[in-house]
C-alpha cells in the first residue's frame, strides 16, 4: 500500500484529469482520514472540550495534501466538507430511533433547556441542507464550507472566488433558510 499522501496526490490529479472513479476514492480517503483524526482528538480530549472543526480539517489537509500544491487546497476543503457531512450523517443514522418523540427543541444558549438528541438534529439539518442545495446550489456549498469544513468568512470567500462581503451576506441568508426549515421539520 502506498502512503496515503501519495495516494491522495495521484487521485487528485486523476480526478482533475476527469477520472470519475478517482473522485469516489478521493472522497473515501478524506473521509477515512478525517474520521480517524476526529476519533483521535475525541479520545484525547476531556469531557466538555469541543472539537475544533478548523483544526480537524486543517490537520487532515496537512496529512493528505502534502505534495498536492496550493491550488488544490480548495478542492480539498470541498472534499473535507462533504466528508465531514457524511460522517455526521452516518453517525446520526445510527443514533436515530424509530420513534421521533415530539417536542424537539433546538439548542440555544440558555443551557437550562434540554437539548434535542444530537443525532436527530443532525439528520434534520441534513434534510434542510439538501433542500437548500436543491434550491440554491451555491448557498449549499457555502454552508458546507462554513459549517462542515469550518472555514472562516475570508477562507470561504477565497475558496468560492467571492468577496467576503458577499459571503457574509449569503451566509446570513443560508442560516435563515436552514433555521426556518428546521423549525418546519420540528413542527411535523
Amino acid at each position: 500500500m502506498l502512503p496515503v499522501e501519495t495516494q491522495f496526490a495521484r487521485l487528485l490529479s486523476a480526478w482533475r484529469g476527469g477520472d470519475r472513479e478517482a473522485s469516489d476514492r478521493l472522497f473515501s480517503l478524506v473521509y477515512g482520514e478525517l474520521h480517524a483524526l476526529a476519533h483521535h482528538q475525541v479520545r484525547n480530549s476531556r469531557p466538555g472540550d469541543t472539537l475544533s472543526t478548523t483544526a480537524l480539517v486543517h490537520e487532515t489537509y496537512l496529512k493528505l495534501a502534502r505534495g498536492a500544491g496550493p491550488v488544490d487546497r480548495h478542492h480539498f476543503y470541498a472534499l473535507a466538507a462533504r466528508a465531514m457531512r457524511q460522517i455526521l450523517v452516518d453517525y446520526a443514522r445510527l443514533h436515530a430511533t424509530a420513534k421521533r418523540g415530539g417536542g424537539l427543541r433546538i439548542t440555544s444558549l440558555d443551557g437550562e433547556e434540554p437539548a434535542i438528541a444530537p443525532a436527530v438534529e443532525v439528520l434534520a439539518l441534513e434534510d434542510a441542507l439538501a433542500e437548500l442545495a436543491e434550491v440554491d446550489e451555491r448557498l449549499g456549498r457555502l454552508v458546507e464550507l462554513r459549517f462542515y469544513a469550518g472555514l472562516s468568512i475570508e477562507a470561504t470567500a477565497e475558496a468560492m472566488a467571492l468577496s467576503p462581503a458577499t459571503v457574509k451576506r449569503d451566509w446570513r441568508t443560508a442560516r435563515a433558510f436552514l433555521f426556518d426549515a428546521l423549525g418546519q421539520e420540528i413542527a411535523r
Partner: protein
Amino acid sequence: MSRRLAPEAWRRVEALFQGAVALPEAERPAFLDAECAGAPELRQRVAALLAADSGAGDFLEQPAAERLGVLLGDGAPATPSTDNWAGRQIGPYRIVRELGRGGMGTVYLAERTDGQFEQRVALKVIRHGPRGEDLHRRFLRERQILAHLQHPHIARLLDGGLAEAGLPYFVMEYVEGEAITDYCARRRLAPETMLRLFENVCGAVHYAHRNLIVHRDLKPSNILVTTGGEVKLLDFGIAKLLGEGADEGLTGTVLPLTPAYAAPEQLRGEPVTTAADVYALGVVLYELLAGRRPFASAGESPGGLAAALVAGQPERPSSVAQLAQAGTEALDPRAVQRARRRLRGDLDNIALTALRKDPDRRYSSAEALAEDLRRHLAGLPVRARPDTLRYRAGKFARRHRLGVAAAGLAVAVLLATAGAALWQARRATAETHKAEAVTHFLVGLFEVSDPAKSRGAAITAREILDQGAVRIRGELASQPEVNAELLQTLASVYTALGLYDRAKPLAQEVLELRRRTLSPRDPRVADSLDGLGRVLLARSDFAHTEPLLLKALELRRSAFGARNAKVAESLASLADLRHEQGKFDEAMQLRQEALATTRAAAGEASPETARRLAELARGFEGQGDYRAAEGALRQALAIDRAQLGETHPRVASALHELGIVLSILGKYAEARDCLEKALALRERVLGADHPDVGETLMQLASVEDDMGHAAESEAPSQRALVIFRHAYGEDSPEVANAINERAIQDLSLNRYEAAVDKFRDVLRRHEHTYGAAHPVTLVVKGNLGLALTYAGRFEEAEPIMRAMIDSRSKALGSQNIDLANDYKNLGALLVYEGRAAEALAVHRDALERYRKAYGESNDAYAYTLAGLAEAEALGGDLKHAETHVRQALATLTKTYPGGHPRIQGRQLILATFLLQQHRPAEAEPILRRSLAYCEKTDGEGDWRTAWSRLLLGQALSQLERKAEAEPLLRKAQAALAAHPNRIKLLSPYAKSALHSLG
C-alpha cells in the same frame, strides 16, 4: 404550505430577504408591503426568513465537528454553561466544587451539611434528560431496588431529589480514581493483573444483573480504579432511570448512551437486556487489550462505518496491538512461543465473543465472561469458541511436548505459525467462515499425526507436509497472505527436515507470491528472501544465494533498525554463505556482529544467542582456532540445554559441533561421547534418514578412525553415504565429503590405491562444485597427495602437494595452522624420496607452526616431531633422531595408552634408529611387541607385519642369533615381494636390509 420552491422563485425571495435585512427593523414591513404587493405567499416566505434570522442566535456558528465530537465520544453535547454552582445548597448537601461534565449533566463534589453524616459525595445534576418531575418520580419508585445495590465494586447510589428549576439530582458515593483504561495504560500493567481487575468489573456487573439492573452505559469513564487498585463502577441505575424515558414517550429523546460502547441493538433502539452490558464489557476488554476501541479504523468507505458498527467484524485485538511489528515470528517450535500466541488467541476470542452482533451469541452473563478469563489464566481451554477440536489438539500438543513425535512436532509448528498467520490476516481476509476453513484444515492435519487418532499406519511428517502443501494451495488460494505464510512455514519445515528438493520450489513460490501481493519493502518479503536463500545455500548454489541474502538484510535493517534479532539472523545467513565460499575472515566479522546484535536484542541467555555462538564457533573452526570454537560451543550448549531441554534438536547440533572440535583437538573419547549423544537425539527427533544424522555418522566414523578403530568407522560412514545420496543426490558436495571420509578410512586400513581413486573422485567433484582454489578442494588435494605418497607414487604426489600448499598459503594466509599438516605430509614425502636437507627444513617449519599454535605436548606436534626424526636419521643425525622420536612417543602414548597404529609406526622407527646405532638388545623387545601387534591388527600378509618381521630378523642378526633370524627374514622378504609398492615406504635402513638379503 408547500415547501418546494422553484429556483427562480427562490431568487426573488433571496433578493427581498437581503434587501430587508439591510434595513432597520422598523422599516422592514413597509418594504415588504411594497415589494410583495399581490404576492402573499412571497411575503410570507420572506417574513419567515426574517423571523428565522432574528431568532437564530448563534445557530450553526459552531461548526460541525463539535457535534461530531459529541456523537463520537460521550453521547451528548457539552453545552457550555455559564453558571457556577460552587457553594450552592441543594437539599442537605452543599456543593464544594465541580468534578466534571458528562453526557447528561454536571457532577459536583458535595458535603452533607445536616450534621447527620460526615460524608463527601458526588452529586450529579441531570440537565439533559427527562423532565425533572418524571425522573424523580421514577427514582422514588426504583429507590428501593437501587439502594439494595450493595457491592464493594459498585459506587452506591445514596439519594436523589429535585433542585431548583425542577432539575433532578442524584447523590452517589464519591470515588476518586482513574478510568480503567487510563489506569492500566499509565501503569503498564501486565496482562494478568489487568485481567484480574477486569474480572472484578465483571463480578460487579453480574451482581447488578442478578438484581435486575442493567447498566446500559458502561464505559471506561464509568469504570474507575482507585489509587488503592480497587475497581468502582459508577452510574449504575442512573442510566436505567434516564433510559426509560424513551419508552414512556416523554418529551425529548435523549439517548443516554455512548455510541462507541453501545450494543448494536441499543443503537437500533431495540429493547435492551443484560447482553448489552456484556457487549460494553467486550468493548472495554478490547480496549484494554488492543489500546483502542473496535472499529476505530481509518479508510472505511462512507457509510461502511455505519454498516460495520452494526454488522461488521472487529479486528482481533492482538492484530491491532501488533500493528507496530509487522513480519512473522521466525520458525521456532518452542512451546513458549506457541503458548504466547495462544494466549493472544484466547483473549482475542473472549473479547470477540462478547462483541458478537447477535446478543444470543455473546456470553450469557458477565460471570460467564469472567469465568472464561479465569480459565484462560489457568491455562485451561476456554469456552469462547464452541468448536473446541483445535483447542483440545493444541492443548494436547503443549502438555505433551516431549511425547509428540517428530511428525507431530513439524505439524504443531505449522499449526502455531499458521495460527500466527491467521492473527495477522488483514481485515479483508478475516471473514469468519474462511478463518474456520483454515482452522479445520489445520485440525485435520494435526489429527493425522496425533498418535491417538491415526489409524495405525505409519504416517510420516513428509507425507503430512506433502498433503499440507496441496491443501494449502487449494483451500487458501483466495487468501494470498495466509497462503503465503503457511507455504513459507512449510518450506522452512521441509528445509529443517532436509528435504531440499521440496523446499526449494515452495520457497520460490512464496517469494514470488509475496513480491506480487506485498509492498517490496514489507519485512515478510525479507523472510521469504532469507528462506529461499537458505535453501539455495544448503544446495551450495552460491551465486543465487548472495543477492537474496543481501536484499533480505537490507530490507530488515531498514524496517527494524540495527538492534534486532531478525537482522542478526540475516547477518548469520550471510556469514554462512561467506563461510561456504571460503571467505572465513569476512564470515567471522559477520558472525561477531550477529552475536553482538542478538545479545543486545534477545539477551545473554536466550536460545538465539546460543545459535549465534554455535555459528561463531564454526567461524573459529574456519580460522583454525579450535580452542575458541570449543569455548563458544560449550557456552551455546549450556544455554540450549537450559532453555530448550535436553532433547531439543538444537542441543543435538551443539553436541555434534562440539564433538567435531574436540576430535580435532585430540580429545577423542569425549568427542565420541558427544557425537553418540548427538546421533541418538537426531535419530529420534529427525528420523534415521535425515541428512543431519548422516553428518553425525560421518563425524563418528572420523573419530573412530582417529582413535585407531578404522574397522569401526566403516559402518557409520557407509550409512552416511547412503543417506546423503538419497537426500542430496549423487552430485552433491555432501556425497563427495562422505566419499572423502571413506577414503581416509581406506588410508588407515592401508588400502592406498582405493584411497587414491576415491580422492581423485572427490577432487573432481569438488573442483566442479567449489572450484580449484576453494579450501575444501585444496584439502582434498592434500589428501590425494598423501594417498599417492602412501601408494608409493612420489613423482605424482610431489607436484600436487606443492601446488596445494601454494594455494592454501594464498587463501588462508601463510601462517595458518592447517598448513602445518600440509608441510608435515610434504616432509614425509621428501623423506621417502631421500631428500634429507629439504625434508629437514620442511619438518622444522611445520614443527614451528604447531609449537606456536598448540605448544609441544600435543599429538600434531608429536607426529611432526617423529617426522623430523626420520629426516634427521636420513641425514645421519641418529642421536637427535632417537631423542625426538622418543619424545614423540612419550606424548602419543598419553593419548593412546593402548596400542595404536600410529604409535606402532613410531615404535618401528625408534627400533630402526636403535638398530642403526647397533643397539639390538634395546630394539628386540620393541620389535617383538610390534610384530605381535601387527599380526593381530594388520594380519599376516600385511606389509607392515612384514616390515616388523624384517626388522626383528635384523635385530636377531645383530644379536648373532642367526638361526632365529633367518626364517623371519625369509618370511618378510617373501611377504614384501607381494607388495612391491610398499617397499618404497620402508625406511632406508629397512630397504637396504631387504636389499642385502638378495
